[in-house]
């Protein structure tokens, strides 16, 4: 396969996941801002932080909720806004039409201009509907890829991009919210914490799933365990790393060649193997999170070097 094709598939996977994750973050912000006693701007700032847009975009720091929503949803200056992600994913797809199935292309192409020229006020007023729409688009794209794409190296590159992005988004959410998971807040207790914890789960669409696994006992240990170590939850760090390793192995088997990215992936999986969440807290959750973010970035760079893109 052309290296350029692999590159476009990889980034298409990343952008679609980023659009999806950003929509979930905005949903979390929207919900938290409705909780009594919350400091509105703090919540929205942590949303911006988790979405990687904490720095002023376009020279203006975020003053209001509308600023954050604008930057994350419809801004063209923010390369990671949902709109930018959808436009870039479509551009990736358009550049490699032949590597896409018709179903995938239609999922990318349908309504891609929906967010163009939308006034900030309109976007805020219609936020829940718009976010629902974004999640539907990304789900349609994933579905189309799953049912129609050949399971060859192209599929692996698409999934690798998506998984790297999912791991990154979960890590950045933990990075922005880790303070609510620290043991001392456990002592404070009360409704406010409950909302904080559930909001973290909501942002990863894990609320119900968590409920099933941990029987509704919301506590920081359980939540961190779920998002980092749970091998069955598809956005957990552990799951993402294992699956990344599997797809990299598939490509290596197919091409008959391994490289540094394979070693890094193996290392990342080994790092979480048999680890208990208590150990992570003892060793320092914050350090673990920032190290993992760096490792994830390094892996992405190694993959593109290995496959010449």
């Amino acid at each position, binding site marked *: 396969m*052309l290296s350029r094709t692999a590159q476009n598939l990889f980034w298409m996977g990343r952008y679609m996941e980023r659009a999806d994750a950003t929509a979930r973050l905005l949903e979390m912000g929207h919900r938290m801002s409705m909780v009594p006693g919350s400091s509105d701007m703090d919540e929205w700032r942590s949303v911006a932080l988790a979405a990687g847009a904490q720095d002023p975009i376009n020279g203006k720091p975020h003053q209001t909720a509308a600023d954050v929503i604008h930057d994350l949803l419809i801004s063209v200056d923010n390369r990671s806004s949902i709109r930018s992600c959808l436009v870039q994913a479509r551009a990736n797809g358009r550049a490699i039409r*032949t590597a896409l199935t018709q179903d995938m292309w239609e999922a990318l192409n349908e309504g891609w201009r929906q967010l163009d020229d939308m006034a900030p006020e309109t976007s805020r007023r219609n936020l829940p509907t718009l976010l629902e729409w974004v999640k539907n688009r990304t789900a349609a794209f994933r579905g189309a890829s799953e049912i129609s794409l050949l399971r060859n190296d192209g599929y692996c590159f698409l999934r690798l991009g998506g998984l790297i992005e999912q791991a990154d988004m979960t890590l950045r959410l933990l990075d922005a919210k880790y303070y609510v998971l620290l043991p001392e807040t456990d002592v404070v207790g009360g409704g406010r914490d409950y909302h904080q914890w559930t909001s973290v789960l909501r942002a990863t669409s894990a609320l119900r799933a968590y409920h099933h696994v941990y029987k509704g006992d919301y506590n920081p240990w359980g939540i961190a365990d779920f998002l980092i170590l749970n091998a069955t939850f598809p956005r957990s760090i552990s799951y993402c790393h294992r699956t990344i390793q599997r797809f990299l192995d598939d490509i290596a088997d197919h*091409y008959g060649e391994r490289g540094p990215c394979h070693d890094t992936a193996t290392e990342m999986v080994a790092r979480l193997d048999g680890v208990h969440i208590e150990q992570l807290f003892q060793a320092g959750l914050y350090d673990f999170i920032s190290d993992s973010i760096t490792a994830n970035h390094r892996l992405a760079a190694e993959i593109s070097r290995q496959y*010449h893109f």
Partner: protein
Amino acid sequence: MYGSQGAVRVPYERVADWISAAGVDLLKLRQSEAEAIFRRIGITFAVYGEGGDPERLIPFDLIPRVFGASEWRRLSRGIKQRSRALNAFLYDVYHRGEILRAGVIPEDLVYRNEAFLPEMVGIDPPGRIYSHICGIDIVRTGEDQFQVLEDNCRTPSGVSYMLENREIMMRMFPQLFAAGIIEPVDSYPVLLKKTLEEAAPMKCDNDPTVVLLTPGSLNSAYYEHSFLADLMGIELVEPQDLFIEGGLVWMRTTRGPQRVDVIYRRIDDSFIDPLAFRPDSLLGVPGLFDVYRSGGVTLCSAPGAGVADDKAIYSFVPEMIRFYLGEKPLLENVQTWRCASPEDLSYVLSNLKDLVVKEVHGSGGYGMLIGPHASKKDIEAFRLKLKANPSAFIAQPTLELSTAPILGDGGVEKRHVDFRPYCLVGRDIRLTPGGLTRVALKKGSLVVNSSQGGGVKDTWILAD
């Protein structure tokens, strides 16, 4: 659709029945459905220099255009004959130039032609084929009369519409196709791939690897490039995906370099290789032409093939057919005045209001004058342009173009159409029964180019 006596012509009976049975309102509804499908699939067409939407939709008209079986047999013989002659001409002008020595075509018209590439002289492309895909634009000028409007020997576009228009029609109106009386067109990609594989270069010793070279996703015909690559199952490459090493062409892949044998290039001559042609080109592959010259790769069409489809050379194609094939031309040309000749120029200047004047190197319907539709002011402005550089223009009479029915605002209306079949030249000459019908959607307009408000239709060739 109607004959000279006003009755529905036989090939059109099925279409006429269908229109009256379905009714105009229903058809209009279906037409907007068809457009929604095109938009969703992403069949778009960029128009240069007009700004606005870079991914405009080409208008699609629902009512098919129909050729009867015997009409097609005649046309198809004529098209194949013309394609053979054009290739023979290209081989000749890049070798001994017999036709010029014989005085049939003036030397200047060839050697001083911008599309003539001296670099190509003496090169033998595989099978002596230069133009692997000949798009011959044809108009009907009478119930039994067809004329060739122009030839396209470089990289004629539009074949994706032939395929997609049919796809849409079959999807929306399966009952029309049920009786199996309409020739299918879906063999085109298979035949195209076969034709390209047959062009494998001397140094290719395995199954040839064929790629389609596109300038990229901003090109107006990008949809077509990706569509064809997809249907042929070959890689769609951009210039940056290719490089030259050891006298061969390679593409960059995730498994390292892979050799390329045949390049179906949809990039103009001057952009294929900055070392050989335009040094300012950011598009090309440096060194590609050298590899081509030494038989390491085949370019389809061959560089310099454009010298055969220039509008001034066009008027000599019937002569070529007599000269190279010793046959009588089966398809007529439209009468053409070459403004380079003083005699013709003076005729053209005194009859501007009745003539169509075109730029010799122009395409896409730009820069032409349609005398009967132009204002006095426009004619005078054009007169100055023409006098300043006569050899850049040719003139033709305004043709009595046939019309075909379309779905307009007022129901079924008449519009002018032309027709472009795609003739494939490999070891055999292959012609898919079909082509692209372009239609001038503006009332009274004679210009069918999609860049000028033209649309497209499905084209039916009826089986015997």
